[in-house]
């Protein structure tokens, strides 16, 4: 009997040990994140490095949410300078805004180098992604030539030299997504310029059209976007009720009558209810002979 009990004890110990090892292994198993980085410059607004991370989960590729990156600038002697930390959102995306000092060329440099690193993360393996780009400038203006409006964009490098042979897109800003104007792409000429005629009259609130010209995901310059507005559209009245108190507004913009009358009714019913509850206390406190 004693031998059987010992075997049973050993077996249980073995099972426990196995489960502990398995659970430790399960805890140690980390995912490998697949990260892509892109430089995005919106002229006059901001320059940033945008990161997108995903991993192979149980249901295929899933966005890597809540993943922190340390973003470093590579200095000329290959040393790293931390410029910021960012964490991915629910879509697995994050960005680091580059300040003016981050975007200044050191003497002799023509290329910026940055590294985004995953370091000491509980869920993901340590890894790094690097990105290199040159700075470029994109300017845009709306011209009127022979009673026809045209939009002109000029792409130059950081020294102001034109960049020919680059593909730009031209679009009109709309609520959900830009509306393409003309062809899908326009190639810059020897002056680094594209000129796109605006043949169709387009409606806009107060007649103000906002165009966007973009160089998209260039290997050398990243994404550069420039916005330009001009009062050349067909004026339409802004009929949006966004700022008004309507039946379809959020709670902070409830119509006044709907705030006043229902609340008066609620008060009119709940005050007597409170009085009735108080009456119960009054009944319980009434002296026996009163």
């Amino acid at each position, binding site marked *: 009997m004693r031998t059987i009990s010992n075997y049973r004890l050993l077996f249980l110990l073995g099972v426990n040990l196995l489960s502990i090892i398995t659970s430790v292994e399960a805890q140690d198993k980390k995912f490998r994140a697949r990260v892509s980085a892109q430089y995005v410059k919106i002229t006059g607004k901001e320059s940033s490095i945008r990161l997108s991370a995903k991993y192979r989960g149980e249901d295929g590729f899933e966005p890597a949410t809540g993943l922190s990156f340390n973003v470093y600038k590579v200095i000329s002697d290959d040393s790293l300078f931390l410029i910021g930390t960012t964490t991915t959102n629910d879509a697995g995306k994050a960005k680091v805004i580059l300040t003016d000092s981050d975007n200044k060329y050191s003497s002799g440099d023509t290329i910026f180098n940055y590294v985004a690193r995953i370091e000491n993360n509980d869920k993901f393996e340590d890894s790094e992604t690097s990105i290199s780009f040159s700075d470029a400038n994109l300017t845009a203006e709306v011209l009127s030539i022979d009673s026809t409006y045209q939009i002109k964009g000029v792409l130059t490098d950081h020294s102001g030299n034109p960049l020919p042979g680059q593909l730009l897109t031209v679009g009109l800003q709309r609520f959900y997504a830009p509306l393409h104007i003309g062809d899908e792409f326009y190639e810059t000429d020897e002056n680094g310029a594209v000129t796109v005629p605006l043949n169709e009259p387009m409606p806009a609130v107060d007649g103000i059209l906002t165009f966007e010209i973009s160089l998209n995901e260039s290997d050398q310059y990243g994404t550069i976007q420039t916005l330009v507005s001009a009062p050349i559209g067909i004026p339409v009245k802004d009929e949006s009720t966004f700022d008004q108190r309507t039946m379809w*507004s959020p*709670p902070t913009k409830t119509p006044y009558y709907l705030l006043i009358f229902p609340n008066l009714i609620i008060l009119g*019913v709940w005050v007597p*209810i409170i009085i009735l509850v108080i009456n119960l206390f009054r*009944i319980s406190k*009434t002296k*026996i002979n009163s």
Partner: protein
Amino acid sequence: MNNSYTKLVSDLAPRKFSWKGNVWVVFLAIIVLVGLYSYIQQLRQGLVVTGMRDYALWGIYISNFVFFVAVSLVGSLITAILRLSGVHWSTPLTRIAEIIAVAAIIMAGITIIVDMGRPDRMLNLFLHGRLQSPIIWDVIVISTYLAISLLFLYYPLLPDFSILKKHFQENKYLNRWYGRLSLNWTGSKRQMNIYSRSIKILSVLIIPVAFAIHTVTAWLFETTYRPGWDSTNFGPYFVAGAFVAGSGAVVIVMYVLRKAYKLEDYITDHHFDLMGKILVMLCLLYLYFNINEYLMPTYKSTEEEAVHLRSLFTGEYAWLFWTAIIGGLVLPVIVLLFRWGRKPLPLFIVSLAVVLGAWWKRYVIVIPTLSHPFLPIQGVPQSWHRYQPTWMEWSITMATLALALLIITFLVRFLPIVPIQETAEERQWPDSIQTTRP
């Protein structure tokens, strides 16, 4: 002390369940537990375990919710309206009506939580709810009606608790609890003044709130632009239907309790006869609203309404629709027009048909309309066009119904079914006053 009065207290004081009562409780508890298992599965896996999809985004949970709201209206009918009208014959039925109202409104609230995909986010309803939405109106009015119904049940119990405290002198546990619940009730002049005034306020207050609760529930549908719900008449139509369902429920419960507790001296054949007359009047009124709701859209027969009405009259919902209309309204009216039809047993059977018909009528109001929207949804599988409740939905729905019956059963176990003090006063036994005073 008057022997008749002692007998009255003894007859009407709460009693332990018989073996049949215990079997009944176990039976209900099993249904509730099966429903609870299904609900846990629903919480884990989400509403995908139900038959609800993009088309039928409301299913039997919502039709069941509307049914509970309808039944809860009975508290205001039997107690408040008849009390304010100076009708005294209804005294033995008031407590039953109030108990049913409380159980039904509690279950209405629980059923709406069951229908939520993420009940853990319920607080957001209060934090971010828009006063423009009828759903918020419903939340407000249901909680208000629950508060009033509880008060309306509790207030008339105060003198009875005092009587029960004395009656259960030898049972320490019950004596202590009834004593606490009686709030030191002695029947003194000052207490009577506060009590009478409070009952009057409650009787007046509960009627508009009761009407509001069912009208607002009707507005949940009416404010949505869909065939079958696009009506200006939905509020009164729902209220009329609610009175029918509630009255039927009262008759069923009073029949069962009269049998179980041998209350023939208090709930008499005369009460059944009068309740039968009320029920036939309410059924006729509801029938009138039904004719309005279905005849005019049939006459106009706009494209979408015609499709919807065809599905009700001759299509896939025809057997349910006609069963609810004929079995739950027309036949009951015919039977109840005869005196023999208002005898306890026939009236009980008729009321069962009325209540079952009322439940299915809510199903017929909710589901077919969702299957035929004005704007069909593109790109959904064909199976999503139709709604078929899953066994999990059925088990959860049955559990809510069983839980309502369980609440009624436990309230009946510890509260006097027929108001003792009021019955004694109506029978003009002065001892009743002495009993409530030291």
